[in-house]
């Protein structure tokens, strides 16, 4: 009996050693080599899948940048992020067209919409939409920022003051997510919508790949926003204060940082990002209330893979997940119904091997 126990203990210790070794390997160049290898192979083997993966990754990245910021600074899993993105997309849609579901069919509610601006819907730069959508996106971002700040005042701040655990925040944000999705269903019903109906312009890339011009736009906006948030976090006073708060809120407070104001700024930036990410999501896929929640798991996977609180990590994580998903499905490893499980498997692996993520700070 004693021998069995001793053997069991030895095997367990051995396994723990292996787990640590694997963790070290992944924290070293291993993980980069792995993903680089996969990426290169996908790039050469199935360039079309790779390109689509980059586009999927861009949409994920836009959402994950905001999520990682909120998660890092405010220290709770914002389960309403996916639904917030979709709500922002619908708000932009409303600002652009003024359409809501009426008694039986769609009705225009607003007497004046952005579409009434001169040439607002005339396509620009070869894209499918005009500058009206960009203004609508800005409006959606502002509304979401205000909504986030209001929700923080009404819900999250009282919970914070009471010293609630992360679980209570998670339940509260899930309740808000459900409420947001129901609002979308109430006002815009459940069928899919598009900003611009009809065939959209495409662009030919090398190797005979043809993608929507909108998708290139999505990629560029992710490529611009990730460094922008990085600069805000690491090159401004506000960002410094945010990082200080992420490290230790009490210490930040006694160092003379107005943590209350930092919280508001975090929500404002988060809201603006949600506005942009939501519109991009709707451009890539469509406007559909259920899409927000579906996106939640890949969003969290990207955030945790990249390291919570790191915008560059969120970008890389989102790209890895986007590319792996598309390549796995295109090459026939997975049936499309299991696409999301890629994100899930990566998430679980990451949580065990390297919970702080690729770019996360050591704790």
């Amino acid at each position, binding site marked *: 009996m004693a021998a069995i126990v001793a053997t069991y203990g030895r095997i367990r210790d051995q396994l723990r050693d292996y787990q640590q070794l694997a963790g070290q390997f992944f924290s070293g160049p291993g993980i980069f080599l792995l993903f680089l290898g996969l990426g290169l192979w996908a790039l050469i083997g199935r360039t079309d899948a790779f390109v689509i993966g980059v586009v999927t990754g861009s949409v994920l990245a836009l959402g994950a940048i905001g999520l990682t910021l909120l998660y890092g600074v405010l220290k709770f899993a914002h389960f309403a992020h996916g639904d917030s993105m979709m709500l922002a997309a619908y708000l932009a849609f409303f600002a652009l067209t003024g359409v809501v579901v009426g008694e039986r069919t769609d009705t225009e509610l607003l007497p004046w919409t952005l579409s009434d601006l001169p040439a607002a819907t005339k396509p620009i730069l070869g894209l499918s939409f005009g500058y009206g959508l960009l203004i609508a996106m800005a409006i959606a971002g502002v509304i979401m920022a205000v909504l986030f700040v209001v929700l923080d005042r009404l819900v999250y701040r009282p919970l914070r003051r009471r010293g609630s*655990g992360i679980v209570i925040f998670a339940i509260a944000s*899930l309740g808000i*997510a459900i409420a947001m999705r129901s609002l979308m269903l109430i006002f815009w019903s459940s069928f899919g919508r598009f900003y611009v109906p009809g065939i959209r312009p495409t662009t030919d890339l090398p190797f005979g790949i043809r993608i929507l011009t909108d998708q290139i736009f999505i990629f560029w906006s992710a490529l611009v926003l990730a460094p922008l948030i990085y600069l805000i976090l690491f090159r401004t006073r506000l960002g410094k204060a945010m990082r200080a708060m992420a490290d230790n809120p009490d210490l930040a407070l006694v160092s003379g940082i107005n943590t209350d104001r930092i919280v508001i700024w975090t929500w404002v930036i988060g809201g603006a990002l949600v506005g942009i990410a939501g519109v991009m999501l709707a451009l890539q896929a469509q406007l559909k209330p259920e899409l927000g929640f579906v996106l*939640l*798991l890949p969003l969290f996977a990207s955030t945790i893979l990249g390291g919570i609180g790191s915008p560059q990590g969120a970008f890389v994580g989102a790209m890895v997940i986007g590319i792996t998903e598309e390549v796995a499905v295109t090459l026939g490893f997975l049936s499309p119904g299991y696409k999301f499980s890629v994100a*899930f498997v990566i998430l679980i692996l990451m949580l065990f091997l390297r*919970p702080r993520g690729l770019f996360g700070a050591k704790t």
Partner: protein
Amino acid sequence: MKLPTALSGASLKGRLKGERLITPVTVLVITAAVVLMPAERSNWDANGVISFLTFFATFVAIYAIFTLGLNVQWGYTGVFNFGVMAFFLVGANAAAIITKGPANTEYVRYVGGFGDRLAFLPFLDSDQWLPFLFGIAGAAVFAGVLAFLLSIPALRLREDYLAIATIGIAELLRRVTIEERGLVNGTRGLTGIPRPLGELVSTANYKYVMLAIAVATLVLVYLAIEWGIRSPWGRVLRALREDELTTAASGKNVFAFKSQGFVVGAMIMGIGGAIYAYANGAVSPDTFTHFFGTFIFWAMLMVGGSGNNKGAILGAYVVWGFWTITLQLQGYTSEHPGPLGFALPDAVQSRIFFIRDFLLGTLIVVVLLLRPQGLVPEERRVSIWVERHAKRVRAVPPAPDEQAASSSD
């Protein structure tokens, strides 16, 4: 993470008089609406109302079983499970495929189907009840094994990671049931699940049998949990929830106890899933959404009061009552107005389900903010021995110097 008890949060508001009335008033309003609305709709036809209330009570009992399971996991053990749907799904499907006969047509494919072979006991007309016991036991075992396998990696995770991981597991299982067509018949789901004790009474009266089965299961589960939670085992779970480190320092294996709490909760959910499958007679993958399979049970537990089994049952009653009332409200159209010409505007009437979801999402936030302890707060004393001892001590009038000590009790 500490549960908000009566001590925190609402302690100041608790002194206001209205606070004590919230629970009875809520229950009264829900009960009145659940009884009076269908009565009014059916022109005060007693049979119709009784039939409606029977179905209502059956489903309250079933959802209360789930909520009790969640209460064991979250309210007592402090394990955060956002994937209740996973155990619901496993329990319902396991019970269905164990009880049904083998699949025999091209369009219906599923594994299992032992129903005909399970009635091997020669006494007491066992084909009437034995397969269903196997079904329920199988559902509990499958859910328990799943929970055990999950608990090995998942319980070592931080709470927020655990939440994300359990959502992922639930989603994965849902996809598996849909994608693997031969497993539980894919998107079509399983229909024609035999009814427990179905041959005993006529179809018209069968609903009372189902109600009895659901309530009996609920009572058994309730008594088992109450017994378990008042035992030393239960006190370790609650100690764990309050402070893992101190519990570990007292020589308790934290992981083992957490895992046990998680598995027991999951098995109860599996039983709930089995009774659901029997009561419904069919299992459809459409049932297993994150909203209906997970969130609604969280709403029930938070509204009722986590950490209290009575609260969990009351929460199931209140939330399901609210759910049913909105369904009834849908009947008040402009063609069929209610009393005093009450009718919902068409715009509201066509969206009543979405509005209900909105209200439920808002409700959980409001409960968290204003009454974090729920309708029935957690009891602070859980040992029957303390209770008996306290009764014996109180029976003897205390000496003057003891009075000061016991008044702080």
